[in-house]
């Protein structure tokens, strides 16, 4: 196993920079700078170059195997945060025979040594990427091992159910506990219910990770773009901004009361004459109907509107020009009604994330649903007292266990790992 190194903090000027070395020979990395370290050590040391010249005065920390992030012996160099110092240290480590870490390699090693399970690795990635408070809350729960803990509980119940079924198969002629099926049924019913509710929440939690989409929809010139600009310019922090996939869908990503939200400004809906516009409108329609929520902007109360979902918000635009306000109105121009609108959107979305589940990815949801469907099938047959083919019942319970194993990465490791680690960058 190689000993690897990388800068753990962001590149650029800073108070300090941290360079991490991990692997069996980590401890000897100090020697490359003329510093002798004990397996558990912390000290301020003079880092010397190959020719004895001083590079920096730095703080060095060493962790022994089993007590570090990666589970391997680790040394951390806390240098002053100049990119020049960092490159000198990195070069020196390279000369000393250590290898630059590949993207995600530190985390990968943490997984390999069993410091983290797969869902924790995902939680960590999300935690590092978190931009809003809700994202942080959710990610840290997963990183803390909440999902792994749940899986362990479900798994042990399923293993118990499987064992009971197996006992009736392999010990048919012996003193088997009488009728095992009531207990099997109880175990399965409880796991089934929990998996189901966890899976239900997973979709919305995935939105917390990736962001909700809210589309502004309406006829041309209803003030959609003005509204978007107003939203973007308010106290809601803009975290990124880029043009949509077509010239007609503009996206603005923002933090709406702790929730990551992307506002879509779609092309005005009308019967377009030219092809390019028609394509734009179609595209906008598609994006809008896939969004989590739509804001319909109307010019007048009489304008016909058919919202896609009962949650969708309907407001009058150009509130500054209307006198009669028998329905909510908003003005992107003056900001009138903006607080109300933002409040309604935020409430609508945070209601959806209120559950405190821990499955946060489509992958989790898929595995959970897989489990639900296997267990559901078994329960169906049990309640119909269709127990002649116990071998098939047992096989379905095994399949449910395998589905859960996928969640924490106990099976099919290689493919999963490749997928997960390609999305990592160096040093994490």
């Amino acid at each position, binding site marked *: 196993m190689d000993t690897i190194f990388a800068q753990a903090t962001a590149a650029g000027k800073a108070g300090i920079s941290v360079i991490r070395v991990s692997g069996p020979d980590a401890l000897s990395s100090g020697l490359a700078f003329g510093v002798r370290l004990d397996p558990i050590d912390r000290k301020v040391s003079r880092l010397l170059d190959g020719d004895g010249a001083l590079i920096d005065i730095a703080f060095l920390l060493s962790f022994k195997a089993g007590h570090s992030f990666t589970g391997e012996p680790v040394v951390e160099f806390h240098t002053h945060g100049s990119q020049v110092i960092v490159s000198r240290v990195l070069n020196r480590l390279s000369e000393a025979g250590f290898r630059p870490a590949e993207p995600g390699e530190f985390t990968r090693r943490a997984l*390999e040594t069993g410091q983290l399970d797969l869902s924790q690795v995902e939680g960590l990635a999300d935690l590092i990427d978190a931009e809003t408070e809700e994202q942080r809350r959710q990610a840290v729960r997963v990183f803390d091992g909440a999902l792994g803990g749940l899986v362990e509980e479900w798994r042990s119940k399923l293993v118990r159910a499987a064992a009971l079924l*197996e006992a009736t198969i392999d010990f048919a002629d012996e003193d088997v506990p009488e009728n095992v099926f009531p207990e099997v049924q109880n175990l399965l019913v409880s796991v089934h219910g929990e998996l189901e509710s966890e899976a239900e929440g997973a979709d919305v939690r995935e939105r917390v990770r990736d962001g909700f989409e809210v589309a502004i929809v309406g006829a041309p010139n209803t003030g959609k773009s003005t509204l978007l600009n107003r939203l973007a310019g308010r106290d809601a922090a803009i975290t990124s901004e880029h043009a949509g996939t077509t010239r007609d869908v503009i996206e603005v990503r923002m933090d709406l009361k702790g929730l990551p939200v992307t506002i879509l400004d779609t092309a005005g809906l009308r019967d377009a004459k030219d092809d390019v516009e028609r394509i734009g409108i179609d595209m906008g329609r598609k994006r809008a109907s896939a969004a989590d929520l739509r804001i319909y902007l109307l010019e007048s109360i009489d304008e016909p509107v058919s919202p896609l979902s009962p949650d969708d918000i309907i407001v009058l635009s150009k509130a500054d020009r209307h006198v009669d306000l028998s329905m909510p109105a908003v003005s992107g121009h003056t900001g009138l009604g903006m607080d109300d609108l933002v409040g309604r959107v935020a409430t609508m979305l945070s209601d959806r994330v209120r559950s405190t589940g821990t499955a946060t990815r489509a992958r989790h949801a898929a595995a959970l649903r897989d489990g639900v469907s296997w267990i559901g099938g078994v329960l169906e047959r049990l309640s119909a007292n269709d127990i002649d083919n116990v071998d*098939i019942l047992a096989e379905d319970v095994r399949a449910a266990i395998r589905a859960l194993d996928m969640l924490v990465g106990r099976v099919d490791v290689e493919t999963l790992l490749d997928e997960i680690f390609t999305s990592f960058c160096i040093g994490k």
Partner: protein
Amino acid sequence: MKHSHYDVVVIGGGHAGVEAAHAAARMGVRTALVTLTRDSIGVMSCNPAIGGLGKGHLVREIDAMDGVMGRVADRSGIQFRLLNRRKGPAVQGPRTQADRKLYKAAMLAETEEREGLDIVEGEVVDLRINKDRIDGVVLSDGAEITAPNVILTTGTFLRGLIHIGDERIPAGRMGDRPSVRLAERLDDLGLALGRLKTGTPPRLDGKTIDWGKLDRQAADPDPTLFSFLHDKPFARQISCGITHTNCRTHEIIRANLAKSAMHRGQIEGVGPRYCPSIEDKITRFADKDSHQVFIEPEGLDSDIVYPNGISTSLPAIVQETYVRSMAGLENATILQAGYAIEYDYVDPRCLTRELQLKDLAGLFLAGQINGTTGYEEAAAQGLVAGLAAAHRALERERINFDRTTSYIGVMVDDLVTRGVTEPYRMFTSRAEFRLALRSDNADQRLTPFGRERGCVGDARWRSYAKKAAELSQLKTCLETTSVSSRVLAEAGVNVNVDGPKRTLFDALSISGTEFSQIASFLPEVNQYVDGRIVRQAEIDALYHHYVARQRKDVELLHKDEALRLPGDIDYVSLSGLSGELAAKLEKARPETIGQAGRIEGMTPAALSLLVAVIRKKEARDKAS
């Protein structure tokens, strides 16, 4: 001094030894079976029964490879019963009581008739070793047999020690001397040895049993045999008796526990949890006040009776008292006291999946010496070792039984990968591809494989080929005939009337469908096929979807099996491995990643570490 030469020498004439010798001889290599006496060939030292759950699968697989156990059991079977009749064909296990004498006679006849197989009477006292390979054996009279392949099947004879109460008798089984010199020779080889124990109940005189007081268990009215070549029993079928232990029995045993060899702590060997002695049953399940005891006659014209369920190491006098406390046994006399026997076994993790010692080329171990229990487990290993030794003699590539295609593969892989902590017995739950590895399709799984490898004879092959052709014709016809769901529903098939058109095979795969319900939709010529072929098609259809679904897992396993670990990995110095895992890996020295993954306590983390080791080696090999 006598001197002879063979390609393969098998030591031991028990179930492992005979099957090994036959397998090698079928492959056409010159084979010698060395046994103490001709008389001990085919002896059943314990329960006079063959088959059962998981075990019946093994016998079917042996038979599919044209082995002997299934045919001999059929010839001597006096009470055929298919276990788990109501629990799905995949987990049904054929079993029979066997007439000891018939079994022995049939096995001896098979063995004497086998071409290319010589029976040599004598005691092997030494192995001839030439550096890192074996080249023969030495008998106690000084005669030597040279052979590049030796299969050791010594059962419980390695330092065997019998316990009855506080009595201790060195013996391989009651009445036979243990093989002490051979055990010492194995010590020299530096193999990791462990100690196991097993037990046997007292044998009763059938004339002194009041059969009228016993419940009876009859043989199946439609017996299921072991061999694919047989369809009806050869011997008369009988019933077994059933009685029960009672509070008084338990009192007697409890009062005398201190006299039981197992409970006195004088036995160091580990016994099987799933075949507990009556002492164990009573202490471990203290709340039960009765256990079932099967009263099994040992033969049609034998007065010896085997009371299944009360194996013991209590003193003979106590055995008599508690036996007589049971209904029907009030006046029973004991012909031979029950006893516990402990013996050495070799840690099977020092073997390859061909059951060859990793460190001594040409020496194969099979049977109880590898820590297993049961005739069927022993015979199956014998088959593996016999074929492997013959392959080696013929300089052919290795023969590999696969977890995905046989129980034999599951067992061998379990043994050499995970070792044993108690005597290893086959269970259906050990096979993760259980729904595909059925006793009904053992021939489909293994006979073509065996034929290709050269151990399946012409008669067997002709019979199999005929069945396979008929089955395939029927299945093709079922797969190419489609009927609307409405019509199927009217015929009683459990489908939604508004569903799509279905093939008849699909209809047959729906739980509860029987061939008779759909036969009329087939062309006339296919309506009247052999009942056995029909039944086979029904079962194949029932599991069809499951087997198809598992194909992905099978591929995954094969992918892992293709990743071969270098033999020289120093696991202890691999950083990132826990000390416990490193020690386990060091012991098992797995041949593949797949195998490593099945070591107990293995983590995905450690596995990816091993994959990295392989990748690194590949990169190095490519570079150089």
